[in-house]
């Protein structure tokens, strides 16, 4: 039926992502990244991707896996440390990087999901981020005009989801997953727990299924911790 967004697995979910595609990938650091979909993208071997993601993973996990296989042409991120292969490709000119402020990144996603093609933000005024951008002054404060993203695919990871694509995230794994889920022309959600409609409380849904086109229950989540810190 038309409202059932379920696909079998990550491979089926990403089947039509082609070389040269622009993809949003949710997560902050390694928290809440779409692990299964990244594995499937590596297996598919799709190339020349433009990836919009707050970070670029680490050498052997997350988007780092797609860097190892040289599938990424361009990263649009706010912070890309912790990744030696990334650095190598950047310095060698193999990889293009566009660094943008984190709030601008998140808001460019949100605005795409809200059908607002551009918005003013004070972030980056007077910096190299402002190069080539329109500015506007309101009440004595200067703002840059930033565009909503226009991405073919958004791939996000949620905690729970139902067959209609309604999503609930857990804790700080919500991060970019929620605004990116709203921003994709085609949004793919992988979830830890896929449930039937009626099993989620309609008051607790973070992203309504109208924004989600494909959903599947992922498997073998590693959920790697980047900086394990515990109390003394």
């Amino acid at each position, binding site marked *: 039926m038309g409202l059932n967004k379920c696909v079998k697995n990550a491979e089926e979910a990403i089947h039509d992502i082609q070389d040269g595609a622009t993809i949003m990938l949710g997560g*902050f*650091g*390694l*928290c*809440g990244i779409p692990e299964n979909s990244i594995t499937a993208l590596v297996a598919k071997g799709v190339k020349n991707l433009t990836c919009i993601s*707050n970070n670029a993973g680490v050498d052997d996990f997350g988007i780092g896996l797609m860097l190892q296989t040289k599938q990424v042409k361009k990263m649009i*991120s*706010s*912070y*890309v*440390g912790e990744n030696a292969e990334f*650095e190598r490709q*950047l*310095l060698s000119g193999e990889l293009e990087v566009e*660094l943008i*402020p*984190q*709030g*601008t*990144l*998140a*808001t460019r*996603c*949100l605005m795409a999901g809200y059908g607002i093609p551009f918005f003013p*933000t*004070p*972030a*980056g*005024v*007077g*910096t*190299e*981020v402002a190069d080539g951008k329109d500015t506007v002054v309101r009440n004595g404060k200067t703002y840059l005009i930033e565009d909503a993203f226009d991405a073919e695919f958004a791939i996000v990871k949620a*905690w729970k989801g139902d067959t209609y694509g309604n999503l609930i*995230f*857990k*804790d*700080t*794994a*919500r*991060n*970019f*997953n*929620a*605004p990116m889920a709203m921003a994709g022309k085609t949004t793919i959600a992988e979830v830890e727990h896929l449930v039937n409609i009626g099993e989620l409380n309609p008051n607790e849904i*973070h992203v309504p299924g109208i924004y989600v086109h494909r959903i599947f229950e992922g498997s073998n989540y590693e*959920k*790697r*911790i*980047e*900086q*394990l*810190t*515990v*109390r003394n």
Partner: protein
Amino acid sequence: MGLNKNQIAQRIAKELQDGFYVNLGIGIPTLVANYIPHGIEVVLQSENGLLGMGPFPIAGHEDADLINAGKQTITTLPGSAFFDSAMSFGMIRAGKVHLTVLGAMEVAENGDIANWKVPGKMVKGMGGAMDLVASAKNIIVAMQHTDKAGNSKLLPACHLPITGLHCVKKVVTDLGVFEITKDGFLCTEHAPDVTIEEIKAKTAGKLTIAADCKIMEVA
């Protein structure tokens, strides 16, 4: 000798007021959380989507889904709330965060800050720093007064690529406390064992010593 990092954090903690929502950057700013004065309540905002950041978890209780902006495992506190990155920077941009503390490579006498990029070195990105400095009403910088080569980081103008303009309100370094005024840096406190002469020698930007400049009280 000047202050150590913990003492800088301790001094900044005195700027906290009861009921403040506070964003603490990575490095020395994070340490401020260890010195919240008794008798006041503040909420720590982590820009990856949490109000009410608690301490690190007890070993074995860490949760990969619960981290701070430095990607460290953390905990929540009673009254915590999660939200997405768009709302997080929404509340920052709307000025709802009362105090932002962050590190810097350079601060200019007009309040400009540079803390994200060093030409010739691998650029990791600005993360949320440009959003924070462009939006926060009250920004305190925590940093060493000089770089490793001994060069002043309190400058007439930033040399490094700018993170934000006219935004820093106060700088706390190992040597003292410096308010940004229209006349440049105003030294209102100096570290124990640090002379005014040393501060003058190590401050390249325009510097005024407050008439009532006092010795910082740190443990």
